[in-house]
């Protein structure tokens, strides 16, 4: 049994890498998606809405399969890890789009009016008045998105990325101990999530104004 532990630690490291890269890509997609959904231009608003409803309306596993197995058919060759990051990143990006958009539209209209009456442009009002307030509001809900994303990385086991879930499955064969194997991976997920949520709480407290 002891001999499998190093593999689990290695697998945890892969899960962490997946999580970090997916978070970065997700935030990027979420920022773009929110910008599109809040755009003055109707075409961009439609594109943003289509992105969100496609992603949220289909299983993440199907999205991963389309990208990884279907990709080569239309000329997209990705290794399993790349497909995992891109698939999960674009997926969580749709949820983050709604989180970011929600935080932005929840800022009181009076804030924009005050900025505009001082003579600030739309862009200046957004950057200096709306966004700094919205950013504080979105920390916790984005933390919820990231929590979901970390657990969601288990899906990439299905396209054979050697992360925690895949590793557990792999060593069942040689150890005949599914209970322990899945328990170990579960505990490692929990540690990663615990650390992340502490970080989110810390950030949220730090961002409090007074």
């Amino acid at each position: 049994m002891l001999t499998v532990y190093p593999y689990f630690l290695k697998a945890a490291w892969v899960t962490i890498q997946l999580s970090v890269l997916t978070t970065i890509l997700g935030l990027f997609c979420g920022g773009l998606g929110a910008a599109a959904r809040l755009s003055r231009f109707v075409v961009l608003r439609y594109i943003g809405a289509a992105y969100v409803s496609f992603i949220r309306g289909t299983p993440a596993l199907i999205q991963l399969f389309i990208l990884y197995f279907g990709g080569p058919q239309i000329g997209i060759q990705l290794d399993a890890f790349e497909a995992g990051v891109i698939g999960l990143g674009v997926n969580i990006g749709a949820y983050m789009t709604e989180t970011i958009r929600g935080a932005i539209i929840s800022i009181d209209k009076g804030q924009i009016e005050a900025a505009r009456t001082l003579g600030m442009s739309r862009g200046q009002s957004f950057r200096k008045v709306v966004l700094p307030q919205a950013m504080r509001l979105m920390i916790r809900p984005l933390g919820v998105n990231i929590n979901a994303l970390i657990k969601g990385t288990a899906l990439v086991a299905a396209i054979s990325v050697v992360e925690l879930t895949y590793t557990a499955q792999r060593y069942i064969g040689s150890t005949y101990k599914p209970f322990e194997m899945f328990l170990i991976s579960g505990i490692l997920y929990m540690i990663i999530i615990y650390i992340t949520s502490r970080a989110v709480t810390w950030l949220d407290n730090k961002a409090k104004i007074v």
Partner: protein
Amino acid sequence: MDTEKPFVDIRHAQKSYGSLEVLKDISLKVNRGEIVAIIGPSGSGKSTLLRAINDLDPLTGGEVWLEDVQVNKTLPHRQYEKHINHVRQNIGMVFQHFNLFPHLNVRENITLAPRMLKGLTVDEANTLAEEQLDKVGMLERIDYYPSQLSGGQKQRVAIARALAMKPKVMLFDEATSALDPELVEEVNLVMKKLAEEHMTMIIVTHEMGFAESVCDRVLFMDQGVVVEEGPPSVIFRNPENERTKNFLRKHLASNKE
């Protein structure tokens, strides 16, 4: 006072939301240094008229002029934005709910726009903020955040923020309506001080006593029209129109309760 050329000139202002007409052909001329109060029941269009002056609520018809510049010019989007941002620097506005920026302290609330729009250095902007805060009696709270201030204090800071842009005219949209009664006076005192300095002011208010003591002229609006206008002594003591009389009577009665 130059009576030939009005400072703020609203010509045939008209505003409707669909079939609902909120402003029906209103014209108003305000001279430099003049202080005008707009009173009337809620829904009379008084706030809409005030917010049309800086084009926050654009009119559907008519023109607004500030000195020799038309505020609500028809221009392509980008040019209009440039134009209106420039015009608005000359028109200070104070809101019922203060609208201070909660993520910035008092100093930053005041220095943000002058630094960004007028290119003031940090030192220049700080000096300006201190001057304006001193004027409204809030200098000792310069490092506080809005959430640490009372309503009256917030409103005084909001006035200082507007004044820091050195506006030519100040618009007050029910500046004391959201305040606890005991906090109204401190804001009124600041507005009186501005009046003594001959700031041009247009004040939408429910404070009849204040309007009477400070304003040169009072407009009574109802259902999108100016029903009656004149010096406060006439409007408050000897109104001619039945609707004005009615409104004042009801208002007086509700204030005595």
